């Protein structure tokens, strides 16, 4: 037992540093500025580089290029900054750039409420860029999972050579809580699969569609070509339909081929329950408290906490919903993830518990609106 009293920001920064992060660029924006401030202070200690960019576009641009020199970069922002990251997130997908992005959700749209919490970016972060290739998005529920999922984000980013978003929120990064650091989960981040052959190095070569190309940093002995445009295996522009198709399907397939690692849920099933709560983010916390209260009052209810929000862990949701007649989805938005639950579980009654006033859902209102109190069997 090693108890500390820290907030989600500190957990993210420690997770990043323990995952081998050695480059940071970001621009101040509430409520994510704490990550920038801490990284600027911490990275020089380990010989890393931290920069405050002139804006969000420059910040993510620097991270992307640093990643291609072999660094393990991190950037952090909030919704308005994600809007500015959008085009470069597409570049990172196309160029196969490992990069971890922290999105600290605040109330939107636009400037919205800088110090007001929300979970309104849930759909936005998945379809954040043009071209129709979705992002991998992880969502913590507390300080401990902020740490764990930051290390998972780095692992997936490096392994699959993709940008990964950790989608957290104001009420998670700024909330202080008791944590037992000795019980924290962490995953190992393996180095990118390196190219060991001779020249010429084909930067975008892969055998199977689901394979990840071998990496050489810009600055390696052999020439490295990086491109954000549709390319062939040499990294040269192409519009030949067969090559375009192969590159495009590869970008999608390498993520699908890693499905096992991408299903991160916590299933808490209660025998006899007919109601299932499906939740993520800070709302999952209130939902858990609601479930505990219902159970201690003799009610029956199950809960599925979703950490890997995108791609949607469809099979895990179906498994958890087996035998259930009602699904309750609490969220601090107008019902964004509920759309996915309705899609995955057609025919079931899906009830949203939603708040868009900046306040965290209380367990009481999840019980009342979700009618969990009556969920006896």
């Amino acid at each position, binding site marked *: 037992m090693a108890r500390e*009293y820290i907030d989600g920001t500190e957990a993210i920064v420690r997770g990043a540093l323990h995952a081998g992060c050695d480059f940071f660029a970001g621009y101040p924006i509430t409520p994510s500025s704490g990550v920038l401030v801490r990284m600027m202070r911490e990275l020089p200690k380990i010989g890393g580089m931290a920069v405050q960019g002139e804006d969000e576009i420059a910040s993510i641009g620097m991270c992307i290029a640093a990643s291609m*020199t072999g660094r393990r970069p991190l950037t952090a922002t909030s919704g308005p900054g994600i809007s500015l990251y959008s085009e470069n997130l597409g570049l990172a997908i196309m160029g196969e750039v490992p990069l971890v992005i922290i999105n600290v959700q605040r109330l939107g749209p636009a400037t919205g409420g800088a110090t007001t919490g929300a979970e309104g970016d849930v759909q936005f972060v998945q379809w954040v860029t043009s071209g129709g290739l979705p992002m991998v998005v992880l969502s913590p529920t507390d300080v401990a999972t902020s740490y764990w999922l930051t290390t998972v984000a780095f692992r997936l980013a490096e392994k699959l050579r993709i940008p990964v978003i950790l989608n957290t929120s104001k009420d998670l990064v700024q909330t202080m809580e*008791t944590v037992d650091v000795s019980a924290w989960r962490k995953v190992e981040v393996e180095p990118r699969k390196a190219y060991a052959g001779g020249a010429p190095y084909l930067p975008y070569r892969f055998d199977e569609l689901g394979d990840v190309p071998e990496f050489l940093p810009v*600055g390696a002995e052999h020439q490295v070509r990086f491109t954000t445009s549709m390319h062939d295996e040499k990294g040269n522009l192409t519009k030949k339909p067969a090559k375009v198709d192969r590159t495009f399907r590869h970008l999608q397939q390498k993520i699908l081929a890693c499905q096992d690692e991408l299903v991160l849920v916590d299933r808490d099933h209660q025998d006899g329950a007919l109601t299932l709560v499906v939740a993520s983010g800070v709302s999952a916390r209130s939902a858990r*408290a609601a479930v505990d209260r219902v159970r201690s009052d003799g009610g029956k209810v199950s809960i599925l906490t979703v950490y890997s929000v995108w791609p949607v862990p469809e099979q895990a949701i179906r498994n958890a919903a087996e035998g259930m007649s009602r699904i309750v989805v609490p969220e601090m938005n107008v019902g964004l993830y509920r759309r996915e639950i309705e899609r995955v579980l057609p025919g079931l009654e899906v009830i949203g518990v939603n708040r868009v006033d900046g306040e965290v859902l209380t367990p009481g209102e999840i019980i009342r609106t979700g009618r969990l109190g009556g969920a006896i069997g």
Partner: protein
Amino acid sequence: MSYDVNDYLLADSMPYPFCPGCSHGQVLDALGKALPMVGVAPNRVALVTDIGCIGISDKHFGMHTFHGLHGRSVTYASGLKLGNPDLTVIVLVGDGGLGLGGHHFLHAARRNVDITVLVCNNFNFGMTGGQHSVTTPHQAVTATTTEGNFEYPLDIAGLVDVAQGNFAARVMFHDPRLPDLIAEAIRSPGFAALDIWEMCTAYFAKRNKVSRSVLEEQLRERNLSTGIVVRRDRKGYVEQYRHSLEALQGKPLSEGTELAAEFPRPVYPRQSVLIAGRAGQKVRSTAMILGRAGVLSDLYVTQRDDYPVTVMTGHSTAEMVFQPDPVNELTVDAPDIVLITSEEGRDVIRERLRGLPPTSVVYALEELLPLDTPARVEPIAADAVNIQKKKTQIVLACVAWMAAKTQVVSLEALRRAAWFDERQSIADENLATLAEMESRLARTR
């Protein structure tokens, strides 16, 4: 080891894909000649391009190449240089990309990032059909300025000057000095840019007279000259970074402070506390002391803060839950204890005060009474929590008051928690306040 042009420009990639008469090829040839003069190994050079005609030239080079988004090449160049400071980083950008990414150009110059930016300035957007750009001359005709451009052109080298970058030169594409100037720019530490005036035969030259004499006339009219126009010797960004942050290198990372269960756990299933005060009263940091006191008392604690976008003004609240097992409720319907230390705090929780049950207790500075609440209200006399009239100590004094009247945490745990502050002077001030409050409370008991 010495290199020749073929080590950088790939003979088998020729010819260039540019329009007949376009001057881009001459600039690329000049870059090919300049690199052997600098003598840097091809695999130590990264060439960054973005969108526009000049952006498709990377395939002709044998160095590392990075092709990115329109206008953002300077950001990638900066990232490559900071990611690997041993690289020589060169950007090829058009006047279109320069305009779009002007902000990045300006700040790379200001930071004096050690990169070289070659602006291939042909006064219009070639790839998209000859629209006007930020460097299109006044009165020039383009696809979007059919009656003559009424905007005025940007002077790229002048931009470097105002941004305090180290090196800038202005040069015509056919100037025999071009390879030397490129080599000079690459060798120059810090930020370097070349404004290379070019010829777009597909669009600009069809709609406007462009000849050597016309370009020279342009220079005279705008009171500009060719050759090196900016030269400074400020330290480059990489050296500045290393120098100014050397003191941090090798220091241990900030890990958290372990808080052992030093005090007996108070006996209750749960206590929730809402502190409502004003920004600048140290609500958040005082709540952290209270939270640490909880952890030191073998409790799980959460602390959710709220404040407006303003700093040092407006409300500041901290909502806390203390219990023996992990807490999931960051917010409760009705806090057990409310502590009000300012008007702003009182007003922002007005609705919640009305909804409290009679079992809740509200401790409030007496000047803030009366309160509209069914809860029990316990006034705190101003004198009781006045610590040398310090506004920053009032919340801590009130928290000590509350601790003495409730079971949430003990005064001893609070004092121990205050000791953990990273900054010694702040810890000392807080400890003095707590000592003073303890002695006052002991007298009134």
